[in-house]
């Protein structure tokens, strides 16, 4: 075997005093890290195969296992870090682009963590969500410019364009069937239904089994148009045109043929084993006018009954782009920040392209207000919403709702090992191998998603109550409820918030 210069990043530490050689680690590792030595009655491990997904750690009944970062190191160098050196070795060995998955892991600032939330004291009572109603119901979509009245003077309620109603301003972001498993999709769909929110098909079509969750489904139309047909468009509650994705702005998608099997192939409407390549741009959208045409084509196709979402990655001039989209007829704009996850992306793109969602959101919301069109369109943001405080901050900055995906996958068991591209997800999420897919029981998965979002809802209510706000709409764009900490003037200006203490 040629020397690859690479040393395993992680070490599997087994406590021999605890190991009872039950071999669950061996059975559960799709990477075949563990093996049993009959002669010695001992478990062994080959850490070069370990992706640090913790499947073995989590299932070990005696907690005999842990995975640690190796302390094996090159001569320390702040510039030429282990990671940088390793990547060079890898590329020198393969001649290929580096691929990664999930979101940008680099230590760029996380603005959510530099924003603080207000609370009431004395002059205004905080509200106790256990005693008073605390509302998180949210509508997404256009609002009519003026109300109309019937002949008898009552309000004409039918003049409302199609809207999405959410019990809590959280939706599951696009993840295609194919990139994630059937059971992951079922979990998301069932959770969305129980929660009264929406999940998103991503660009993988909608499996026939899931049409029954249509009322809680957003169907996506992306550059590859995989799985798009009339019934598909009509099945969902809304249609999302995906222009870009935070993890890889400007890049299309590539689902390897190995994952295009059986139902995945049928659902995508492409032959088994063929690579599913989504082009970088939509080849019928080279300009904003083209987008408008697609928006209206989709509206025509669905009789103007479904809101159309346009999803873009947060890039440098996102505010101007969003303004253009708002005028294209879209009902909802979804913006995906650079920390958004993915099943596979070129590492350099993932780590270096795009901007933080916090700044993008603040800029877009402000821009749409300046242009007086904020009420024509709803704003959904995603790209690493990690907890309920992030949501409160996003809404206060001006978002109508948030998209979560990485957090949802974590709820399903994802351990962020960032090896989705291998298709050997030990947690049954980013895989199509039947023996692995079955590891995610949707009965458990959907409940964990419901738990997560319900827990967040409780926390959102608690924080709202602290601010003396008892309905989420009074939080939307309420930037006075936020203060920055450790941010410079420019950052504060873009975020439209004051510094703590001001």
């Amino acid at each position: 075997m040629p020397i690859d210069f690479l040393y395993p990043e992680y070490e599997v530490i087994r406590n021999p005093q605890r190991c009872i050689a039950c071999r669950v680690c061996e059975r559960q590792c799709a990477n075949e890290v563990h093996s049993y030595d009959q002669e010695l009655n001992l478990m062994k491990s080959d850490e070069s195969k370990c992706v640090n997904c913790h499947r073995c750690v989590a299932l070990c009944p005696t907690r005999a296992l842990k995975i640690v970062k190796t302390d094996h190191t090159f001569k320390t160098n702040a510039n030429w870090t282990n990671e940088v050196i390793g990547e060079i070795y890898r590329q020198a060995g393969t001649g290929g682009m580096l691929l990664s998955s999930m979101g940008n892991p680099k230590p760029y600032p996380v603005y959510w963590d530099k924003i603080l939330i207000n609370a009431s004291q004395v002059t205004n009572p905080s509200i106790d969500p256990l005693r008073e109603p605390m509302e998180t119901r949210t509508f997404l979509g256009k609002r009519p410019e003026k109300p109309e009245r019937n002949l008898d003077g009552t309000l004409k309620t039918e003049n409302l364009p199609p809207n999405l109603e959410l019990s809590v301003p959280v939706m599951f972001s696009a993840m295609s069937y194919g990139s994630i498993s059937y059971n992951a999709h079922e979990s998301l769909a069932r959770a969305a239904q129980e929660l009264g929110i929406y999940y998103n098909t991503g660009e993988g079509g909608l499996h026939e089994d899931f049409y029954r969750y249509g009322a809680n489904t957003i169907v996506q139309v992306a550059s590859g148009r995989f799985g798009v047909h009339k019934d598909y468009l009509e099945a969902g509650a809304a249609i999302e045109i995906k222009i870009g994705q935070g993890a890889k702005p400007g890049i299309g998608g590539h689902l390897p043929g190995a994952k295009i099997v059986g139902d995945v192939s049928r659902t995508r409407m492409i032959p088994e084993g063929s690579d599913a390549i989504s082009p970088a741009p939509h080849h019928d959208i080279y300009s904003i006018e083209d987008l408008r045409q697609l928006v209206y084509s989709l509206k025509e196709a669905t009789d103007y009954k479904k809101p159309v979402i346009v999803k873009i990655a947060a890039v440098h001039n996102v505010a101007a782009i969003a303004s253009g989209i708002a005028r294209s007829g879209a009902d909802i704009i979804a913006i995906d920040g650079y920390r958004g996850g993915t099943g596979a992306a070129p590492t350099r793109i993932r780590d270096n392209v795009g901007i933080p969602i916090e700044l993008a959101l603040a800029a877009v919301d402000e821009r749409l207000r300046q242009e007086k069109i904020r009420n024509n369109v709803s704003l959904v943001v995603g790209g690493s919403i990690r907890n309920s405080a992030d949501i409160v901050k996003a809404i206060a900055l001006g978002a109508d709702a948030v998209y979560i995906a990485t957090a949802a996958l974590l709820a399903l068991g994802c351990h962020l090992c960032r090896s989705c591209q291998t298709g050997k997800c030990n947690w049954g999420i980013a895989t199509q191998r039947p023996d692995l897919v079955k590891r995610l029981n949707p009965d458990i998965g959907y409940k964990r998603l419901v738990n997560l979002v319900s827990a967040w809802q409780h926390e959102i209510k608690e924080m709202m109550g602290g601010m003396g706000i008892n309905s989420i709409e009074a939080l939307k764009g309420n930037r006075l409820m936020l203060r920055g900490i450790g941010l410079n003037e420019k950052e504060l200006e873009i975020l439209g918030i004051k510094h703590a203490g001001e």
Partner: protein
Amino acid sequence: MRLEGDVRIPSGCAISGIFSRSGKKLNGEAIIRSISTMHDRSNGLGGGFAAYGIYPRNKDLYAIHVFYDSVRAKEECEKEIMANFDVTVAEKIPTRKMPIITDEPAIWRYFGIPFEKLLKDTQLDEREFVARCVVKINTQIKGAYVFSSGKNMGVFKAVGFPEDVGRYYCLDKYEGYCWTAHGRYPTNTPGWWGGAHPFAMLDYSVVHNGEISSYDANRRFIEMFGYKCTLLTDTEVITYIIDYLNRKQHLTLHEVADVIAAPFWSEIDRLPQKEKERFTYLRNVYSSLLITGPFSILLGFSGGMMALNDRLKLRSMVVAEKGGMTYVASEECAIRAIEPNLDKIWSPKGGEPVIVTLNKGVDA
């Protein structure tokens, strides 16, 4: 120290209102007596009144009340007023010298009506035209501040306790069918004359007690529609919201109340289908105009008055009736002080507006 407009100033307060449905005119004595009963709810940093029906001789003209900090401001402002309005009267508002009232600006009023030609040129509705002029002066002319701009009504306000402010403005000399009053308890500023309440826009005047937690959500939304919240006060944004919904969106005052103090979804979901749709529509379309946090407000408008509490009723407010009179105040004592023998007194539920208007045919 930064003044209103530089910094947001929440405040506690007292409010009181008297309304004669028959159009019977009262001078300002009663309302002063009423608001002074709640002296402890103010801290001397602002008091004010709105009175309707007080300018019967000029009732078809806009009465524009202005504070001036400087001669230059007055010159600049009058130039603007004269350029847009056919002004019939321009005069100093009579005041009574009082040692307790200090730092007085120059206080002027103008009765006039927009030039026809300008209305035609701008294709604006007369009231919209006036509103824009007011916003323009208040945002662009430093040292000038229009604090009243309706027809046959006027706002009188100053830094001081409300009873002193009332005497200062000689309110005993005015007679109106509707009076509202405000005593202010700002929490972090010495107050500024313009920042005192009522806050008025055209003939809408609002006195308010409370601190709304939805402020910035409301402000950033309403500012899309040509308003500029220069004072950063709750009362200002509430006034604009009411102006926007009632005057521009043509919602009824009841509907306005259903937007700003909307019923909870849990209540809406229980209603019959039609009603449910109506409330859902209003809450959805005007979601950013929901006002949360404690408030009790008294809205004065031509021919009527509306009292409204926040939906949780986090601020006290009572309403009483005696004959043709309706009284509203933060505290019952403020009503009893001027009318001990009431026909009826009650505390309206949160979010339930009490709207009184002149009896049919009454032209006050």
